[in-house]
């Protein structure tokens, strides 16, 4: 009797495993080809001195990695990435949350705002890049014109190494805030309406409801939003590439633009791969540490 039961359970387990393997296979194969293999290949390529096109590669072991560690350009790029990361999280998530809250409280009559605010996310980064390059132009751009009304001179935001990075971050925030708005709107719909009603019946104001009830319920979403924003910022490429090309000088150089330049413009594929590998390690580390911190708080 007992033996039969065990075998039944085993049978079911085996079936489950088979089905699981079957269903996971497509994703696993795609991941292996397009994610895991390139990553491994990147690390292999990073041990060669190679211009990217010649048949002969020269094995130099950890030579590229040594150079990378001592390469001030790469660390400047990493620092710029960190600046983008911190500011993106500090700006996009609060504004996104504020907009979502406003829309959630306002209901259907605010649909028009919902649509308007969502538009930036629908535009391609390249189009946004061109748009803002014109809007921020020194001669006849938006900021210069407004400064002119108040008697100020032309303002050069993108050409000045001190302001270029901040300016680009503002544009990045303009583009991605709507994403977090939508993200938090979805999170709001997950809070049952009964909770809101119950709170109101107990005499809570809207403000109290938000701070005491909705906000704590939204914290998990905020955590994952922060991680999304973080990873996105660390691998950022397109808007910078279009708007400043990493310039002036190296003031807006990011790890990704640096990698691109090394690999394709300066025929340094081996070193470019080391940069890509370095990015991979740094991003993984930063993500893991942040998640550890965030989850640690949850338990406390």
């Amino acid at each position, binding site marked *: 009797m007992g033996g039969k039961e065990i075998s039944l359970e085993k049978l079911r387990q085996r079936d489950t495993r088979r089905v699981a393997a079957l269903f996971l296979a497509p994703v696993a194969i795609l991941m292996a080809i397009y994610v895991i293999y390139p990553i491994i290949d990147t690390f292999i390529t990073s041990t060669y001195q190679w211009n990217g*096109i010649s048949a002969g590669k020269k094995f130099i072991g950890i030579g590229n990695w040594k150079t990378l560690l001592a390469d001030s350009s790469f660390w400047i790029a990493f620092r710029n990435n960190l600046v983008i990361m911190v500011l993106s999280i500090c700006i996009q998530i609060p504004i996104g949350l504020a907009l979502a809250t406003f829309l959630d409280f306002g209901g259907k009559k605010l649909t028009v705002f919902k649509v308007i605010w969502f538009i930036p996310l629908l535009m391609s980064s390249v189009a946004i890049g061109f748009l803002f390059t014109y809007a921020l*132009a*020194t001669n006849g751009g938006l900021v210069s014109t407004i400064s002119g009304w108040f008697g100020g001179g032309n303002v050069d935001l993108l050409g000045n190494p001190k302001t270029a990075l901040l300016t680009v971050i503002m544009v990045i925030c303009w583009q991605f805030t709507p994403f977090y708005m939508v993200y938090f709107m979805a999170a709001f719909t997950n809070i049952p309406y009964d909770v809101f009603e119950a709170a109101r019946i107990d005499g809570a104001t809207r403000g109290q409801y938000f701070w005491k009830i909705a906000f704590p319920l939204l914290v998990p979403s905020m955590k994952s939003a922060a991680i999304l924003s973080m990873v996105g910022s660390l691998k950022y490429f397109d808007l910078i590439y279009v708007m400043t090309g990493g310039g002036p000088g190296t003031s807006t150089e990011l790890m990704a633009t640096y990698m691109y330049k090394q690999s394709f413009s300066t025929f340094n594929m081996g070193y470019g791969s080391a940069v890509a590998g370095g990015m991979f390690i740094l991003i993984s580390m930063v993500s893991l540490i942040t998640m550890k911190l965030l989850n640690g708080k949850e338990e406390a």
Partner: protein
Amino acid sequence: MKRRMAKLMALSMAAAMIASLAACGGGDSGSGDGGSSSGGDSGSASGGDKEIVYWNIGTESPDKDVITKAVEKFNSETESGYTVTSVPTQNDTYKEKLVVAMSSGECPDMYSCWSGGPMYEYIDSGFGQPIDDLFNASEIKDKLMESAVSQATYNDHVYAVPYQNISMSGIFYNKEMFDKYKLKEPETLADLENICDTLKKNDITPFALANSSKWTGSMYYMNLAARYGGLEPFQKAVAGEGKFTDDCFIKAGEKVQEWVEAGYFPDGVNSLSEDDGQAKQLMYQETAGMLLCGSWYTGTFATDSAEFYEKIGWFPFPAIEESDADPSIMIGTVGDQFIVFNCEGEKLEAAFECAEKHLDEEVIDFEVENGKIPPVQGIESKLTDSITKEVVEAANNASEIQLWYDQYLPPAVATAHLDGLQEVFGLTKTPQEAQEAMQKAMDDYLANKAE
């Protein structure tokens, strides 16, 4: 368990996010991209088929028409039995596409490029065949300008056929404006600075420059350096016998900064974009008086407004009085597009024949009609445009013509040059610092090469 899953998820998410980048970094993995439009073609071509795949940047008229004309002429007249298939790619992505194609073994049989550093890199990697024998036996040997052939030569072998355009850097100016303020074309740098001061006094920006593109500012720098010290310091520095911190380079950088401080360039010069036409706009609005750039600008002006083009004059960069450098030296390209060959034997002969067709009289006439200056001898007699004639005259009289630094130098050095110079324009680096960075890049390059 949940936490481990979260960790796993996070890792795989990070991995997925970076995968696109990693795919770029790993040379082999990019092959799908490069082969997409013509991989099949070139694959079959290298398999002994009678098809020659020819990559170029002729996506728009008139370049497209010129190439089509030459290729069609070859396909209809040739007795070699080969046919050429032209695969045009948009300019901006062309270099990357070529690199990806080469790394994945899909290099086309013949391709067009800009000569200089990248071309040497292709040749060193085995994607360019010397064509000395074919070239010496061909009539284009006597037809092409010597300076064009020298820009197609590497390590004493001819590797490429230049065909498209002569482009010299020089200064375009607004003739009406010069008349109004009683200015005339300068003979010396001091004259030029007087002109700038006069324009500045009248609230006109002396030079229209859009330097977010970086190579545009390099035009000023290259000319200044050549006038201060000739080409010898540059050639020596490239060969590893001299330094980029030579006097003439430092002086050129200091002059640039002097001009920036004097307000000779527009506000926010480093954020203006050449690709968006922000330099020429200043010329059209007549808020700037002069523009130093390659002579392809004649075509740009003429196409944008024939009326405005009437107002434009041109002069080569003036001499510097206290310097004994030869003022006839020009900075520019003699050919612009150079066809390089990646095939052998009969196929190479056929491909070369096709390249020759680019310099056929009929094709040359067609190019001239479209405002190009093919790099062939006696071309001046075919030209009608007065500025173009002046440009060719300057090129013919030049004792030497140096290809643009950013094109000529090894790519890593070129990048160091452009980045550093942009900061010199932005006054955030001294010329000395910028040149030291450039020299360091050169040292690294030479050290790597020697290994």
